[in-house]
């Protein structure tokens, strides 16, 4: 990993973390309607993958999508405004947290439907392949989503058509309050890859570098026309499933419970001289500022005009 990449990653990790902590507070104050699923704790996955993507690459995301969106380069102000249902939100306030998107940046949307992204990503990859482009599509999904039939259909389809797509599982051990070890007959998600004749790798999802390296290989494979890869990242969410969750199912033994991917990366990056402590401090305070500005922006943004209820149905 080069310095520039490390700095970028550390920045995005911090933006995500501050963003999520801020959303947690704002939600607590009752300023955000609906359901909000926070990404804090899983930053290594989004940033490790996205460090290797361009605007022209596509991602599909999940209900827990803020981290993916930030790492994919979505405007943070527009995101915060969207989550608060404001006019200047990325979707004009019409989508909210579960539907944050920015197609121009290749962010095909957070998704309220668990397992909704497998096929969408395969479809984006089909576009890439059909039009002879050299991009990739990445599908983020949870351990819980791996038991939806859409996983099976999406991976199989992508494999037989050799589509340039990467399936990245964020295994945070739970789907809502249901442990992965109960819900899945297989011990890992990665071990299901052979059923689709694709490589399945399992990496420490708290370690950005591990995620980064696995992604690098997968992109190479995809761009060589060799088809999809499944990467399982072991991770953990710091907050509950959604805001309001009592988290009665979490245990002291949960493997990644006490780990923080951001501190870990700061240590590694400074040790490896990818980043100085000063740079790290500066990134942190910049990120904090970016998020604070976003909150101010979002708070100042008006509610959408009521007439927009009726617009954007058809192109």
């Amino acid at each position: 990993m080069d310095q520039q990449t490390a700095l970028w990653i550390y920045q995005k990790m911090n933006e995500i973390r501050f963003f999520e902590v801020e959303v947690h507070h704002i939600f607590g104050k009752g300023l955000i309607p609906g359901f909000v699923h926070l990404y804090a704790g899983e930053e290594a996955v989004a940033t490790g993958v996205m460090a290797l993507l361009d605007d022209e690459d596509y991602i599909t995301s999940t209900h827990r999508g803020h981290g993916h969106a930030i790492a994919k380069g979505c405007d943070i102000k527009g995101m915060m405004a969207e989550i608060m249902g404001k006019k200047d939100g990325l979707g004009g306030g019409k989508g909210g947290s579960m539907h944050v998107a920015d197609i121009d940046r290749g962010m095909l949307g957070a998704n309220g439907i668990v397992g909704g992204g497998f096929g969408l990503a395969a479809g984006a990859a089909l576009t890439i392949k059909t039009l002879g482009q050299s991009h990739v599509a990445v599908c983020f999904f949870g351990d819980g989503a791996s038991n939806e039939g859409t996983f099976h259909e999406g991976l199989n389809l992508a494999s037989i058509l050799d589509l340039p797509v990467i399936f990245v599982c964020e295994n945070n051990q739970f789907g809502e309050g249901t442990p992965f070890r109960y819900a899945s007959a297989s011990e890992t998600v990665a071990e299901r890859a052979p059923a689709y004749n694709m490589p399945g790798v399992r990496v420490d999802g708290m370690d950005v570098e591990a995620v980064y390296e696995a992604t690098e290989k997968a992109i190479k494979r995809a761009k060589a026309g060799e088809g999809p890869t499944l990467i399982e990242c072991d991770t953990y969410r710091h907050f509950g499933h959604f805001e309001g969750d009592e988290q009665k199912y979490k245990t002291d033994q949960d493997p990644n419970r006490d780990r923080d991917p951001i501190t870990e990366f700061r240590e590694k990056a400074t040790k490896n001289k990818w980043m100085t402590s000063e740079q790290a401090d500066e990134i942190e305070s910049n990120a904090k500022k970016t998020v604070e500005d976003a909150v101010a922006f979002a708070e100042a943004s008006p509610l959408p005009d009521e007439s927009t209820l009726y617009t954007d149905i058809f192109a």
Partner: protein
Amino acid sequence: MTERKVTFMTAINEAMAQSMRKDESVILIGTDVAGGAEVDHLVQDDGRYDDAFGGVFGLSKGLVTEFGRRRVIDTPIAEHGYFSAAVGAAATGLRPIAELMFNDFVGFALDPILNQGAKMRYMFGGKAKIPLTVRTVHGAGAGAAAQHSQTLYGLFGAIPGVKVVVPSNPYDAKGLMLAAIEDDNLVVFSEDKMLYGIKGDVPEDYYTIEIGKANVVREGSDLTIVAIGKMVQVAQEVAERLNPDGVEVEVIDLRTIAPWDQETVIESVKKTGRLIVIDESNPHNNTATDIASVVADKAFDYLDGPIKTVCAPNTPVPFAANLEKAYIPDANKVLHVADEIIEDLKKSHTM
């Protein structure tokens, strides 16, 4: 009988518990209907289970503690899988309650309902029974956005072989849920999430309310308003607001949308000559249009004016609070849509 106020949620929980006590073949199956499966510290000292979720709204809390994991079954996130298992179980001797956490997820659970559960009895010449209750949740108002706020009971109501119940209050919720579980057919029980917190009188006893019968919740001679679920409150408000002008509104809580109670609705329209239907569904091909269509046929000669349907607009459910509020039919919208009718009525009263 002493009065006892409980919430809509509690009423449904109680109905499920009572039917599970009464009949060993009743099971509850769905994602996180208990939660925390195989989490050691949720097993209590007496060997019983504590639930981590008890349903994503906490509606089924306590059931796993009383009935155990054999009868309160957490599933993987695999709606097709457990819905078709519920149909298979219903065809072979169980009486499952299967929860579709949000009706919006119907895209993953539709085939077992549309092509299997609803049709087996017919295709097999009457030789199957499918005593399956599908519990699901509809409705906007919680800021849950386009994929968690839809009102889709009309889609289920269009399927031959499916009964669809939409309760509007805690009393009905309990009685209709018990009737749904007792029913030997596939019954979709669709709950408006915005009603979960409302309280009402609910007897502790086991009682059922007949599926297919509407409830005239207010009598009136000038105008019939048929409303579904949460919209019954809107209808009541409209009735209250027209009362000072001397307009007597008859409010019908439809309770069951498939098969809906044509007799009660038509009788009412014959009396009042005017009909408004309020339905939070998107406006096309829904229960409101169905009612309007039947009335425009069978009670045409009694109608004194146009039939009005008041529905959500033909858009997805928006997220922003103000847009969502504008999306949901309310009393103002009804009064606005009906202003001609009301002018007519006022005139006739002042004459």
